[in-house]
């Protein structure tokens, strides 16, 4: 390999007759004056001087090229490979043209590939195209993870990629970007697995119900068991909000997340919600007030004058009291608040608390919180604020020298569809707390892992705080533009974004000072719903057929004379409701499947067991 053509202090072209350049591989340029310089291949071309680019040249006749091959000459042997190489650190003056280029040994480029101590790193996968360099690597770094590529699972032969957990204090927060099918969910799963490995407390918001870590991959040789390292909670089922602890602000946020509140409603909530309210007391108050407003003052007063039973009377006097107290609140506002509250209640939100989540996190586990997205937004506002407050109070207390406060550990918050939680240009219940954590979370050791397929829709303040960005295949031009703007990704790499294979990603991190191309490792666990809907239907259908066959079997052979009897017997035995016509169709279907065979006879068709 040799430097050719015009050179600059930061970019050269390298040519080779027999070695194809691979994008992102590192090379050592042996400049006679400046010593060895490390560069990265950013573009790779191959060129054959006998096959010109012009279309009309006629040389493209495949038959002739094939004929020449039979005569012993392969035109591809006259190929020249050219790689565009960017220096990782700028040279003082242009590289000498003609100087030779070689592959580096691992130790020469270690500092560019591995950051921090291995024990502190999240092993996300392998660095692409480092195979030759990896061969010279220390033994304990080799084959650390398994990679799935082109239908095959194998131990990595490349340099492993570690994201240093310790560096989070300096460069907090991770963004994971990529369209559907880009491998983003896999990437997120791998990150969470690695966090669990380190027993770093974490909280994951899971709107897709897919972050399940108890099912191990069965095709892997050493799939690790994570079933004890995480806990799954469904909102309303296992966890919820303690109404008693809700502040007015929390309540407003909760209600408005069901559907935005009008000004009148907000002020009504402010007035109606009292310190120490339980769900019951608050909802009763709302109901009573509604009824009172519907009845009207005159009717209530009239009622009070009548001779009623004490209970009824008591209710009416309470209504009157409420009417006097809240005379400015219009009926529609109260009704609006009431249905929002009912919806929250029906979701089970108020029947539980967040204690289980706290406990799981205290144990260094990953707490996965699942729920429909609207509820998740509502709930996570409350949950995140609470957890963050716990951590902040503890840490602030420590700073002020008031030790002894209740301990709460540092933690990581992860979510997919992050643009729903911190959207750009509009408000969302969670946006405030997420922005706050993005901006000052690192002070308290609270970090974010935000995944989204639409980085453009993510709030800019938040995006700017995501120090490490893992970028999978992205097709939308506006998202590519956002990514280019927000990362140190090079123009050449941005052009490759739409074509990245699933599972390949660029990692842009200030720690590396450049974009690293990686392939994410194969996760140890799998998502619960990876069964294809098509497979599901097929499996269902087959089992239905099997069932039918089993129920028919004792009544075989079936022929015209005993058909009506068979229908009766089968219905009796299985509880089905076959008629002659439908049973005949079912039998025909089984014949088609080869489970039954049909014979013609003078008495009509006879259905027999195919194995008979």
């Amino acid at each position: 390999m040799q430097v050719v053509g015009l050179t600059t202090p930061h970019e050269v072209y390298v040519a080779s007759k027999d070695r194809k350049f691979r994008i992102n591989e590192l090379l050592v340029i042996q400049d006679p004056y400046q010593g060895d310089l490390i560069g990265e291949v950013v573009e790779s071309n191959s060129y054959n001087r006998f096959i010109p680019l012009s279309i009309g040249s006629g040389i493209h006749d495949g038959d002739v090229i094939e004929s020449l091959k039979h005569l012993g000459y392969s035109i591809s042997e006259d190929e020249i490979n050219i790689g565009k190489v960017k220096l990782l650190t700028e040279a003082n003056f242009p590289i000498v043209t003609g100087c030779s280029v070689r592959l580096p040994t691992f130790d020469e480029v270690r500092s560019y590939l591995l950051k921090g101590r291995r024990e502190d790193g999240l092993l996300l996968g392998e660095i692409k195209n480092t195979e030759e360099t990896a061969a010279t690597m220390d033994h304990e770094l080799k084959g650390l993870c398994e990679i799935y590529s082109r239908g095959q699972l194998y131990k990595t032969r490349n340099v492993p990629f570690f994201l240093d957990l310790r560096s989070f204090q300096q460069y907090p927060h991770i963004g994971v970007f990529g369209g559907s099918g880009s491998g983003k969910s896999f990437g997120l799963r791998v990150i969470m697995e690695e966090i669990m490995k380190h027993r770093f407390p974490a909280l994951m918001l899971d709107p897709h119900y897919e972050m399940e870590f108890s099912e191990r991959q069965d095709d892997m040789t050493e799939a690790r068991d994570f079933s004890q390292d995480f806990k799954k909670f469904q909102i309303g089922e296992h966890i919820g909000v303690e109404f008693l602890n809700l502040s007015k602000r929390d309540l407003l946020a909760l209600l408005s997340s069901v559907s935005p509140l009008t000004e009148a409603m907000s002020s009504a909530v402010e007035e109606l919600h009292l310190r120490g309210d339980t769900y019951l007391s608050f909802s009763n108050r709302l109901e009573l007030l509604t009824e009172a407003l519907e009845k009207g003052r005159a009717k209530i007063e009239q009622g009070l004058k009548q001779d009623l039973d004490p209970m009824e009377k008591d209710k009416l006097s309470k209504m009157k009291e409420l009417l006097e107290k809240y005379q400015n609140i219009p009926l529609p506002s109260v009704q609006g608040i009431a249905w929002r509250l009912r919806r929250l209640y029906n979701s089970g939100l108020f029947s539980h608390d967040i204690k289980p989540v706290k406990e799981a996190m205290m144990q260094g586990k990953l707490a996965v919180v699942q729920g429909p997205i609207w509820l998740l937004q509502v709930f996570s506002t409350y949950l995140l604020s609470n957890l963050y407050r716990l951590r902040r109070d503890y840490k602030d207390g420590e700073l002020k020298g008031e030790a002894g406060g209740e301990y709460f550990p540092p933690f990581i918050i992860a979510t997919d569809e992050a643009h729903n939680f911190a959207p750009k240009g509009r408000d969302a219940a969670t946006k405030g707390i997420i922005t706050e954590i993005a901006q000052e979370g690192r002070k308290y050791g609270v970090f974010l892992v935000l995944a989204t397929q639409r980085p453009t829709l993510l709030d800019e303040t938040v995006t700017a705080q995501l120090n490490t960005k893992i970028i999978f295949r992205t097709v939308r031009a506006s998202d590519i533009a956002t990514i280019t703007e927000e990362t140190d990704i090079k123009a050449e790499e941005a052009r490759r974004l739409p074509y990245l294979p699933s599972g390949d990603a660029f990692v842009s991190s200030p720690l590396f000072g450049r974009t690293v191309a990686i392939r994410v490792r194969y996760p140890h666990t799998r998502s619960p719903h990876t069964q294809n809907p098509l497979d599901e239907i097929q499996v269902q259908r087959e089992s239905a057929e099997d069932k039918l066959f089993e129920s028919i079997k004792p009544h075989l052979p079936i022929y015209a004379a005993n058909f009506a009897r068979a229908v009766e017997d089968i219905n009796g035995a299985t509880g089905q409701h076959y008629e002659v016509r439908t049973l005949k169709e079912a039998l025909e279907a089984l014949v088609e499947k080869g489970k039954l065979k049909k014979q013609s006879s003078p008495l009509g068709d006879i259905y027999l067991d195919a194995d008979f």
Partner: protein
Amino acid sequence: MLELDLNLRQKFEDVASKMRLRLQQRPSIKALRDTIADRGIGTFRGSQKLDTQNLLQVVEKGKIVGVDGSTNSSKGPFPYIITLQQALAKPCCSDPKGITETDALSPLTVEPVIGEDEYRELVKRNLACLEVKVALKAIEEFWPRLILLDGSLVRYKIEAPQLWEKLKSRALDGDIILVGVVEGISTNLISQCLKDELPEVIYYASDWEILFGLLDVGERLEIAQGLFKEGFRTFFMRSSTDPKPIGIDLLEEQQIYLSEVANLVYTLTPRDSRGIPLWLDIVDKSVRITDKMMESLLSAYLGDDYVELIRPKREKREL
């Protein structure tokens, strides 16, 4: 372009219409074909593309070697001229190395002093010699089955007679087929034979002109024995979709291989190309001395000051 001078345009039109007339005067394609066949000038035959089996049979007997040469002279006033010549024999196989012969000439180094035309002749002869030399070496080194030479075989006989005889006898001894591939046909065998039957304007028409568009793709006209130069057989073939045929020469002694050669040439020629076997194009590209190469050699070995001395004024035109 601005207003073209009226006279200039008129004159151009006249000449152009005469040129068109010449082609229009050509008898119809069918008539021409019939006449050529009837008068025994040659036979029309089709060629086939060889399949893998056939090609492997060829390879069994030996390699196929392409021979080509290149000349490039520095631009400048006579005798301040340097001519570089290079000939290459390249076997069609994975070993990329071929056999090269090179030479550099200048009127200033030739004894005795010669004129411009003589020098041009010398250059031509010298290149033919180089080409035959590499062909000879290729025979020794590669034991080829067939050698494709760029240009007519007759040319070698005229320009490098002694070496040619040697090559010919070696080829005949070793049963190595020599094939001359002529890109620009300049003979007029057909019009000479048909003088009485052709309109006056195309009395002396060249063979390519007569055969333009006359042959189907893959079809050839084998010129009857004895009509071409003594000791050679030739045929014209439309080896690609290009309507202008190419010429192929063979030794008279090797005429039994005529259809084998025709099929091979047809096989090795890309369908939509100008009609030259791809292998010869590859050899041509490998051997070619480009102007750029010439320039860099000149400035490296002659020095920029001398380059300035010989550079013609016309090269400095700026408009």
